[in-house]
């Protein structure tokens, strides 16, 4: 029987790869009876979605000075 620490490790791993069948089953059984671990899996999916949106929307601007400086360097080549 898995404890929550182990279940959380498997749940995280399951986000990145397909778990071996026995781990998958063990996790499934654990989450049937454990509310906290079910919530954790929700949180993992939330985190993934947030990360992906962050990756798309993260948008900063070079300062004008930096841009000018880089442009000057490029000009020299």
């Amino acid at each position, binding site marked *: 029987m898995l*404890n*929550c*620490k*182990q279940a*959380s*490790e498997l749940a*995280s*791993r399951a*986000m*990145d*790869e397909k778990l071996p069948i026995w781990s998958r089953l063990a996790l499934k059984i654990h989450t049937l009876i454990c509310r*906290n*671990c079910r*919530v*954790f899996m*929700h*949180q*993992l999916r*939330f*985190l*993934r*979605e*947030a*990360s*992906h*949106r*962050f*990756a798309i*929307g*993260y*948008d*900063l*601007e*070079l300062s004008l000075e*930096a*841009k000018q*400086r*880089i*442009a000057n*360097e*490029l000009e020299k*080549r």
Partner: protein
Amino acid sequence: MNIGSDKLDPHTWLDEHGNYLYSYALLRVKNQHIAEDLVQETLLAAIAAKNSFSNKSSLRTWLIGILKHKLVDHFRRQERNVTFKDLTDEDDNFLDSFFAKDHHWREKLNVFENPESAFQQQEFWKVFQQCLSRLKPRQAAVFLAKEIDGMNNQDICKRYSINSTNQWVLMHRARLSLIKCLKINWID
């Protein structure tokens, strides 16, 4: 579509891709000046190697590829100065703040209500970025590679010279930390 025009005119690269490269770099090095230097190095290297750009990938993907190499070089230089603690003793007590002695959760967990509304708020993304920047360097590196860059597991292990178990441990810890940080700092 003629994408060849891009290739012929590196003068537009700074205007068209500079901010993107800068954002990408700053998220990883957390220092404005270093990020600016990396953008410059990347563009210089790209101009020098422009003949090797093939239209198979987009110009931006190609530039990011060069920037990634520059980042790896940067971290290598840095690692000579900063010694990361060995993975296992990085923080032995880390998991104790989440799990009790019997290995069950210390606290009742709660889902994030209304993800969509969170994603639409500036404040959420500010908190998200702060939480990312508080991760330990190795956790951050592996987490960003996986979730932001979309690298596959094999490449991540190769790039950071770790095995799959190391990767599971780092991802698990990064996720626990981020979720906890978001829960504390973001009121949904």
